[in-house]
């Protein structure tokens, strides 16, 4: 399956090789057994790879070249907003006052960092249209969990016990997962023929036992729900809160604000909308912005500014749900995202969203013609926002080529494939999000690649079914990987 099997660094280990020469010990040499309790002592030495520095460098460089990332090519992964990460942000995050700050540094000696977080909170509050922000949550899903715990605290403080959370059938999978983690029950709401929330179904399910509606707007079909005010009023009439999944905020920055739409709680995926290398395990960040009625329950510590302009961390919030994590959140992410907001400014952020929407609609329009239009039609044919969802159902039916096959073949053309098989509502879904940072040539190139792949499939379906051909690893056996995952290496078997 692999042209050249990847080896682990342990397989390159050779006894006695070293990457560094340590100086002679200048303190007394003591037996660890004299210093540590028996339970803390190793029974045998750690199995560390023994390898020289050039081989270490080559090993990791080689692995990195087998990877595909945004700096290598177009990455239109729907709902993930893989936009360019300006290199200036790395310089800002590397400033020693930020990068060498210890999280336990007392507040009086971290004033600059706290000021940045304070300013950043206010910028996010303005973008979301909600006045109170907590930067702690470390991912979108973590922000969702925080939001649901806030919802529970809000209802319980009012003496109400509500058990259900509504979510449309187009929602991100993290929504029902967070609902379950927070101890609620998910109730699915149907989608209407225009790709929005089915209002009759929503009215039928909205009741006094409903704690919250979680909504993504624009939703995962890339469509803005035109009935958002009606939806908000239905939920507020039954006393429920409204939660905005901010995964698709890149479509509306500076144009419309969740707070103005009637939402109480929003999470912002900094790593998506506000630039951050992600998708390779880099740290995420999912701050939440909330309305006045939710603010008393926000996680602690809160950043407060006294009359002299000094910043402090306050835990004096009796109704708070407590901490969502240790320390204050992924600080390096805050620096990069704040740098982004400062670089672009209000007008720039608006222009970014407008361009993201324009790029998606340009690709959607180009794909209405030719084989793409015939075999990969869009299911809900409206002006989209920043992303759109095609259905490869005709390609599967007429060419025996599935969304998965087309995705694999795109790798040979040098593109990261779009999100596939999501949202579940669309059969053989392919969800494409170009973002604002791509050129028209790139957008054209991608649509042309789809056209060529479909032409290949017309001639020889098997050729596309067996793709990719040029990647370091050929078609993976995904079913075997799910049924029988092997995620460790037996080091004893190596020696």
């Amino acid at each position, binding site marked *: 399956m692999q042209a050249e099997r990847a080896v682990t660094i342990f397989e390159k280990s050779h006894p006695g090789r070293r990457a560094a020469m340590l100086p002679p010990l200048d303190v007394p040499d003591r037996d660890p057994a004299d210093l540590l309790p028996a339970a803390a002592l190793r029974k045998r030495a750690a199995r560390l790879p023994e390898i020289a520095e050039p081989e270490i460098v080559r090993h990791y460089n080689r692995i990195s070249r087998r990877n595909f990332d945004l700096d290598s090519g177009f990455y239109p992964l729907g709902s993930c907003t893989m936009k360019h990460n300006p290199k200036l942000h790395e310089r800002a995050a590397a400033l020693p006052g930020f990068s060498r700050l210890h999280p336990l540094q007392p507040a009086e000696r971290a004033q600059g960092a706290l000021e940045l977080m304070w300013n950043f909170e206010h910028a996010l509050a303005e973008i979301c249209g909600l006045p109170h922000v907590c930067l702690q949550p470390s991912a979108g899903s973590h922000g969702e969990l925080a939001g649901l715990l806030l919802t529970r605290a809000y209802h319980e403080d009012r003496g109400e016990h509500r058990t259900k959370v509504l979510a449309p059938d187009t929602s991100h999978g993290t929504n029902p997962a967070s609902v379950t983690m927070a101890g609620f029950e998910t109730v699915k709401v149907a989608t209407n023929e225009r790709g929005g929330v089915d209002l009759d179904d929503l009215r039928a399910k909205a009741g006094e036992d409903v704690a919250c509606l979680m909504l993504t707007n624009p939703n995962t079909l890339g469509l803005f729900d035109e009935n958002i005010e009606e939806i908000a009023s239905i939920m507020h009439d039954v006393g429920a809160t409204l939660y905005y999944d901010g995964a698709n905020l890149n479509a509306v920055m500076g144009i419309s604000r969740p707070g103005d739409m009637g939402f109480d709680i929003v999470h912002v995926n900094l790593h998506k909308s506000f630039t951050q290398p992600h998708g390779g395990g880099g740290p995420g960040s999912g701050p939440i912005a909330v309305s006045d009625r939710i603010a008393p329950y926000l996680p602690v510590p809160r950043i407060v500014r006294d009359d002299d302009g000094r910043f402090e961390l306050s835990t004096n919030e009796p109704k708070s749900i407590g901490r969502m994590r240790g320390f204050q959140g992924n600080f390096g992410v805050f620096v990069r995202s704040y740098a982004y907001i400062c670089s672009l400014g209000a007008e720039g952020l608006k222009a970014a969203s407008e361009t993201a929407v324009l790029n998606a609609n340009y690709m959607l329009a180009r794909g209405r013609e030719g084989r793409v239009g015939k075999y990969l039609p869009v299911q809900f044919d409206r002006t989209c926002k920043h992303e759109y969802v095609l259905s490869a159902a005709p390609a599967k039916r007429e060419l025996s080529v*599935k969304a*998965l096959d087309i995705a694999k073949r795109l790798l040979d053309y040098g593109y990261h494939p779009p999100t596939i*098989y*999501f949202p*579940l509502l669309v*059969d053989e879904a392919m969800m494409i999000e170009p973002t604002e940072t791509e050129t028209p040539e790139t957008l054209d190139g991608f649509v042309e690649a789809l056209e060529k792949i479909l032409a290949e499939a017309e001639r020889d379906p098997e050729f596309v079914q067996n793709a990719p051909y040029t990647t370091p690893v050929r078609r993976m056996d*995904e*079913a075997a990987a*799910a*049924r029988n995952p092997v995620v460790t290496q037996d080091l004893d078997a190596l020696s």
Partner: protein
Amino acid sequence: MADEHYPEDLKYHPEHDWARVEGDTATLGITWFAQDALGEIVFFEPPAVGTTISRDAAYAEVESVKAVSEVIAPLSGEIIEVNDALADAPETINDDPYDAGWMVKVKLSDPAEADALMDVGAYRQHLDEGA
């Protein structure tokens, strides 16, 4: 994977489930269409023997490389047997959805419910209408 087919002797539910009714018991599973839409199945989570299931409600989960989906009960009753072989070989549901890929056996609480299910002709028409 098996070729598309829908046996004549089964009853069908619009959510792409089948039932083989024998007196007051029935064997349940998912149709060829359902397993094809799911793709390669990697995990089957059955209910426990003794569980009561209700028509039109979920009674089990299947996970494929694409998604986790609920399996809807075409009939109501009590689980009397589950297909343990699917734990180690869930791909059997793809390979043989109507025989070796059966999911559960049920003691029916109301055998007359089966009259409301579709025969093969009606189910094929349901598929043609873009179900």
